[in-house]
């Protein structure tokens, strides 16, 4: 199906212009990571849960939350046990003494990471990447830039699909991908080899296929797909972006103390 003939997304959140959704995700990241205290991440978490519910992607967002687990675990362990200069020990067991200060900092950092991840998740789950690239290209990103961004993002699901097939192919040849850590480690080469080599080969093929279809021809592409935008959305984008930056500056400078 040609790009311009695809259905325009509808719905309160999904129907927003892709640039608006990108700005919302960006603002979410800025506020979650930049505003001091609990307020920033808490507000962002509430907002993304609301957006996710509106867009009907709450359940799928859980998968993104799962992906943050390794980072969250590391944050919790490092901060709780190794927070510098913290003396308010919760308990002391041999050389280990987790502290309240560390635990609080760990929880706050965890909230920031999860809020940031969920903000990205709502965006990724509700925005067709082609739509975003079309709009960015319309705004002067350039064909090459759009291709680089698009192929990088598009490569992720392809890699996942490829990895799944590689795992199946190697298991069919008796590779045991379950069991102890050593067994799993030994299985990495047969799994990573075809995934990486295949991906490299694919990039080469895609590049040649693009060249064969006049990708580098001079002149501007005619973009037939047009997504509805509005003055209100344009204004809201600027206000959100500037507002979030101001909020971070105010929070960091200590002029306003947020809980």
């Amino acid at each position, binding site marked *: 199906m040609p790009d311009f003939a695809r259905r325009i997304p509808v719905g309160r959140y999904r129907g927003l212009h892709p640039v608006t959704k990108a700005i919302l995700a960006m603002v979410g990241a800025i506020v979650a990571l930049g505003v001091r205290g609990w307020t920033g991440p808490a507000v962002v978490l509430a907002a993304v849960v609301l957006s996710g519910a509106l867009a009907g992607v709450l359940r799928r967002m859980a998968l993104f939350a799962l992906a943050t687990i390794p980072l969250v675990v590391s944050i919790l362990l490092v901060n709780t046990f190794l927070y510098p200069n913290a003396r308010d020990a919760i308990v002391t067991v041999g050389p280990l003494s987790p502290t309240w200060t560390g635990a609080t900092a760990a929880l706050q950092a965890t909230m920031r990471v999860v809020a940031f991840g969920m903000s990205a998740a709502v965006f990724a789950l509700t925005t067709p990447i082609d739509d975003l690239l079309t709009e960015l290209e319309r705004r002067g990103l350039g064909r090459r830039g759009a291709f680089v961004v698009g192929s990088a993002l598009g490569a992720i699901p392809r890699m996942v699909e490829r990895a799944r*097939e590689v795992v199946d192919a190697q298991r069919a*040849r*008796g590779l045991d991908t379950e069991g102890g850590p050593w067994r799993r480690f030994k299985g990495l*080469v047969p799994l990573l080899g075809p995934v990486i080599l295949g991906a490299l080969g694919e990039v080469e093929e895609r590049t040649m296929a693009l060249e064969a279809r006049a990708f580098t021809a001079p002149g501007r592409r005619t973009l037939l797909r047009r997504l509805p935008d509005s003055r209100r959305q344009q204004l809201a984008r600027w206000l959100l972006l500037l507002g979030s930056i101001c909020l971070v500056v105010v929070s960091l400078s200590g002029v306003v103390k947020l809980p």
Partner: protein
Amino acid sequence: MTAAGSPAGSAAWGSTAAVPSIELEVVSFAYPDGTRALSDVGLRIEAGESVAIVGQNGSGKSTLVRHLNGLLRPTAGRVLLDGRDVRRIHVARLAGLVGLAFQNPDRQLFASRVSAEVAFGPRNLGIRGPELDERVQAALADTGLGAEAATNPYDLGYSRRKLLALASVLAMRTPILVLDEPTTGQDARGVARVRDVVARAAGEGRTVIAISHDMRFVAESFRRVVVMREGRVVLAGAPDVVFGEAAWPELGAAYLEPPLAAVAGARLGLGATPTESAFVTAVGRRRGGATAGGAGAE
């Protein structure tokens, strides 16, 4: 069925007597995104049978064969090997029973030498030493890759890589051999090689199952053809039945065409799987008739 319980046990399955029968009991399968790929498939494949599975893209062929070695588990129904539910057997152990050569060789090749790639499967089954070497050499010889044992797999062309993937499964000497689109991308010589491999495996009493869109290959190399459409088995039988004129409407509904020989055979009254000599005789007879007793083609 103790052989299924251990990789080393695969050797026991390697003998003709130990080839298990396969039975799919009302098997249905849906992918996590809800796509229903198999619906109430019932199929029995006897030990030592050679069966081709045909059907349009997306008809469920690959999904079906992935149930045979436990890569996919049915959402309903059972897959039985000699009456034993494969759900209870670990995939790595099933690999010693069911060798599956995937359609795309690039999804499995990783070693830096052809011989190492071929040795990967049997090594996982616990084969070592001279037996491993013998298996590798034999598989390479069977697929015509003997001279390329030291070559990097990625230096081979696509059709050779495909043969390499086939060799890597052959070396496992599983009692059941499943080939997914083995002739795709092969020239006439490659197809002939695949045909030889199928014939040899079937001759050894192993069960050979192949998915293919190459109807000529199917008609010439397999004793039974299973036609799938929209996740169901809609037709099954010997090639002369499945490719016979009476089945053409069903084949057409599955977006398949009988091989040219079957069409020509039907026109000449030779049945759906005419032999080459029957063709020559029939054409000669026709020509003879047309030229009123002129010299026949024979």
